[in-house]
């Protein structure tokens, strides 16, 4: 009996068409971010988006402090749509002196996995990223991490990002700032 229930609850494997569609979506998103095309990026975000990148402390294995899902802990990003738009407005002012000359970005996205969820129009998407930045003469750094997304298919706007959790692999952020989205 139990086996049958589990069987019926089990969600179908994502089709290659769906996987391909979402891969292309993530690549497009990365390309927009590489080019600072944030107006178009924002169009990909759902109105109820939660964009979260927690700070990760170094802790012993036995320490069960929830560093990932506890939203009261310090985070690089813990934003809704309005919060993200506020951050992005900084670039639009024309007085963000440290952004001129512009930073050169590459976002590389890999290890993409797509899963159905209990909601037919929502997909859980896992991916990894390498984000490279180079500025001015020889200023450069590289960020590596995992992402866990929830994408929702809207009848009018296509696939929209509803949730993203980004886990950066650094304890001390080895960069002077985060003028970047991941």
């Amino acid at each position, binding site marked *: 009996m139990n086996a049958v229930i589990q069987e019926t609850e089990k969600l179908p494997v994502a089709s290659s068409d769906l996987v391909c569609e979402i891969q292309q979506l993530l690549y497009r998103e990365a390309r927009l971010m590489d080019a600072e095309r944030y107006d178009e990026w924002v169009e990909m975000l759902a109105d109820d988006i939660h964009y979260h990148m927690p*700070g990760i*402390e*170094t*802790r*012993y294995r036995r*320490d069960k*402090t929830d*560093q990932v899902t506890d939203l*009261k*802990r*310090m*985070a*690089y*990003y*813990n*934003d809704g749509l309005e*919060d993200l738009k*506020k*951050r*992005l*407005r*900084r*670039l*639009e*002012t*024309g*007085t*963000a*002196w*440290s*952004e001129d000359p512009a930073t050169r970005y590459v976002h590389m996205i890999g290890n993409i996995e797509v899963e159905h969820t209990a909601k037919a129009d929502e997909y859980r998407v896992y991916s990894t990223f390498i984000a490279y930045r180079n500025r001015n003469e020889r200023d450069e750094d590289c960020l590596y991490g995992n992402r866990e997304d929830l994408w929702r298919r809207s009848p009018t706007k296509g696939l929209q990002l509803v949730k993203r959790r980004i886990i950066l692999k650094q*304890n*001390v*952020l*080895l*960069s*002077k*700032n*985060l*003028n*970047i989205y991941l």
Partner: protein
Amino acid sequence: MKLEDLNPRRDYSSFMDLDEGWLSRRIFHDQDIYEAEMRNIFARCWLFVAHETQLPKPGDFLTTYMGEDAVIVCRQKDMSIKVFINSCPHRGNRVCFADAGNARRFVCNYHGWGFDTAGRLQGMHEEYCYDPGDIDKSKWGLRQVAKVGSYKGLIFATFDPGAPSLEDYLGDYRWYLDCIVDNDEGGTELIGGCIKSIIPANWKFGVENFIGDAYHAGWTHDSGTRAMNDGNPFPPVDMENSFHASANGHGHEFGLEGVGNIFLLGRPKVMDYYCSVLRPRMAKRLGEQRSMIFGSVASASIFPNVSYLPGISTFRTWLPKGPMHLELRTWVIVNRDMPDEIKDEIATGVMQTFGPGGAFEMDDGENWENCTVNNRGVVTREERLHYRCGIGRKLDHPEYPGTIYRGQYNDANQRGFYRRWQDLMNAGSWADVPDRGGNRLKGRETRDLHKGLLSL
């Protein structure tokens, strides 16, 4: 490799003239000066190591640095705090690798030497290999700091047994520090853990920026201010009714309008809470003056390397990592008695403004980096830097403790910081370090001195 000179007595006065208002760029670059700073400043001064609320239970610990010395800060069974060096006395390996947690003991990975939470050596792997007389365990514990002290929740430690008491070290600055750590009955807490980042800049640039550099804010942070506040520019600064206050190297620059920093946080609910709930309580507790100093456009640093923004609630320390790097550690400081909703709003606002991805913080690192690395040029680093802004605006203020200058666009607190730097760098011991009028409130509870010097 050269042999380290353990007692470098040099005259560091030649690197600056604070009466004229200039500094040599070499102090932001030179490796030997940096090493002397570690010995003459960081191994001497009281350094912030933790907030009481980070270590609520016995066995709670966190790791940090005093200068470049790694230390463990640990709550004891009797609720006192011990601070000891995070290095095994056997071969020197680190004994704790976590940022924070709860421990019953610290055990070295190398040979299994185990220490209790007070740092005492308890035993080791295969202890039988030590014959009687080989080791006196009571003498081979983790090296303790000389003194640990606490001021209204902030825990400090010093390696120097000759250091003045923490209260005397903070001196008149306590009157200003109370604005943030003692403005409500329940005291403060640091919430949500710590964000750390590396900035390729000399540690002093972070400290001096917060100690007095209101001047940069309207220009450097124009974009951040407009982004966070619906396009509005930086709040106007009233040069008549704003001040620099410096006491033995610590400094607080502020206005009297009460709302500028709270506005910059960009959280209307926090503004409501401060203005309608907290300010009346603050006025009763600290006096009218300080209830308007709090929340104004303001910034502050405790010598040598702690900074905070009253009203924006970022609290941070700048850990030196060589002359050309610093590690920034930031926390959110709130009052324990605030409603959870307000604490959450403040935390969100701090992350959006003064986290590494924050609308304000983002522009600072880049500036300090380039102030530092340009000194690689041998000709460039022989040049002076200008620190003379407002040098004629000193005044004898009847109420405000410390050395006071009018107009918060000023280099006065920065000059005060480097005056203390010079005093410590030139001194052979604490006995040689002059008190430059920074402790007139000695022995008094500064919370109760509502009118500052007039209350004496």
